[in-house]
Every structure is written in C-alpha cells, then in structure tokens.
C-alpha cells in the first residue's frame, strides 16, 4: 500500500510532496532544454503554466529542436496527452454532478495526482486529487523557472539519478493498486505492450495502446 494516511485535500498535498520534488527536477530539465533551444525566458515559463503537461512539452520542444515543423510538434504532444481523455472519463462518475465543475476538476488531472486519488478498491477521491494537483502544479512551474533562469548551476539532473526517481514513484503507487488478480495480469500485459510497441510507434502511443488492453481485459471476463 501507498502510505495512505487518509484522503482529502491535505492528504493529497502530503502524499504528493515526494512527487512534487520529482516534477520540480523534471521542470528544471525542461527549462534547461528550452534554454538550449534559445526560446527566451518567458515562453517556457508561460508554457508550463498554461499547458502543464510535462512529457508533452518535452516532446513538442524535442521535435522543434530537431528541426521539425510546428504541426509535428503539436501532434507529438497530443499523442502523449491522449491518455488524459481516458483518465478524465474514469474520474467523472466520482465527481459531484454539474458539467462545469466536473470539467474544471478534470483539468487538474496529471498522472501523479490522478494516481494518488485512485482508491485501491476502485473509484477516486476528488479532494485528494485537488490537493495533489495543486502541489504538482507549483512544483512544475517553479522547476521550469529555475531551469530557465539558473539551471546552469544545477548541472545535469541525470547525474543525480533523478530520471530514475520517476519510475520508482510510479511503481510505488502501482504497488497499492494491484489489488486483484485481474489488475495484476492487466498491469503485466500493459508493461509487455509498452516494451513491444515502443520501437515501432511514436512516443505516447504505447501508453494509449496499453489503455486499450483494459478494454480487452474486461471483455474477456
């Protein structure tokens, strides 16, 4: 189990703190990437504030940096973000009624907060999501600013193994989610699908394909 010291906004904030450290470091490396592409100071910080989707931003700048067109950069980002649609749909039944409120809550979804708000027995806790999301947002924007403004002092985040912290954190949340044989089998199948597909399709697609596995897994029941 994840150290589940209850649910609610405060619990979401507390449980998101280790992840926020990770996302801050990730933000620093995004700021450094933007700096290396000479995108100025304002653009990367505004981008992190309004887009707030780390991997999609990385992918988009990666395409631009490699000389790709604006449209290709957008497609790369959208493919990485496509999973949010399924994640938002999973959240909806657990939100109070009201189209606008539900949509606004869904806007705060990031991988970490969505995962932390997922109850091991199924369902989501809205207050936990909002608490975790707010910490993640601050971490991401502050990290980006640090990277753009003074990243040179921090050096390469890889040297400190920070890129290895993310898989560990995801694994730690997954730990508490493997509550049934079906969930464990589907998780294994998802990992296998990502390994098989990664060399053949653009980044982001393997994760979406893994989501489709959930559909097949239920059908087989």
């Amino acid at each position: 189990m994840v150290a589940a010291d209850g649910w609610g906004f405060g619990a979401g904030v507390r449980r998101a703190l280790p992840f926020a450290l990770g996302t801050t470091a990730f933000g620093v490396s995004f700021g450094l990437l933007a700096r290396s592409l000479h995108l100025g100071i304002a653009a990367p910080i505004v981008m992190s504030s309004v887009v707030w989707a780390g991997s999609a931003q990385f992918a988009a700048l990666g395409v631009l940096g490699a000389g790709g067109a604006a449209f290709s950069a957008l497609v790369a980002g959208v493919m990485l973000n496509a999973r949010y649609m399924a994640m938002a749909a999973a959240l909806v039944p657990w939100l109070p009624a009201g189209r606008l409120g539900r949509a606004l809550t869904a806007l705060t979804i990031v991988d970490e907060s969505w995962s932390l708000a997922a109850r091991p027995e199924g369902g989501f806790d809205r207050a936990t999501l909002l608490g975790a999301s707010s910490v993640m947002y601050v971490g991401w924007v502050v990290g980006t600013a640090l990277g753009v403004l003074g990243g040179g002092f921090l050096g390469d985040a890889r040297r400190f193994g920070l890129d290895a912290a993310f898989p560990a954190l995801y694994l730690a949340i997954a730990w508490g989610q493997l509550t049934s044989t079906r969930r464990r089998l589907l998780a294994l199948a998802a990992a296998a699908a990502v390994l098989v597909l990664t060399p053949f399709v653009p980044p982001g697609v393997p994760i979406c394909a893994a989501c489709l596995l959930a559909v097949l897994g239920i059908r087989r029941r």
Partner: protein
Amino acid sequence: MRLGPGATIWLVMAALALSTVALKALPPALLGDGQLPPRLRGVLDVLPPVVLSALVTSSTFASGSHLVLDARAGGLLAALLVLLVRPSPLLAAIAAAAVAAGLRAAGLAA
C-alpha cells in the same frame, strides 16, 4: 507563411494548451451529469494499474522510440526491493535515484 523560432514556440504553446484542455474536459462535458454505462465503467475502473504499469515501463526502458537498458533499470530494481520491505514511495524514489547515480558515477551504466 514562414514563422521565426520566436513565433513558432508561442503558436505550438497555444495549440498544445487548447488541445490539453480539450482532452481533459471533453469526457466530463460530453457526459454531463449522466452516468457511464456499467460496462465502460468496469473498463475505466481497472485503468489506474494499467496506466501506472505502462508509465513505469516507458519511463524506465524507453528513450524516445528506442528501448534502452541503462541506469534507470538498476534504479527500478532498487525501488522494487525497497517496496518489498517497506511500501514507502519516498524511500523507493531515493533508493532508485541513488543506485542510478551510483551506476553512472562508477561508469557501469549510461
């Protein structure tokens, strides 16, 4: 029309922001106050472990469209061992970062 790099980044940013908002807000906007069909709900209920497992795998073994075995894999193994003993995300992350950094410092892995 050719855009300079300065204009391109703002254009990509605006499009990316709009598409992210659309992807996240579309399901709740379309569903309104309605409930999902039970079958779809069953599918979405098993989504968390599936997404997490995919994220673990891609953030450990993928580098763009290449599969790689680098220091992150050592870090993940360390995290797994920590989690078997104590289910603490923070300890798992610290162990993973320390092992990955150690492997790189020792020149044993990229």
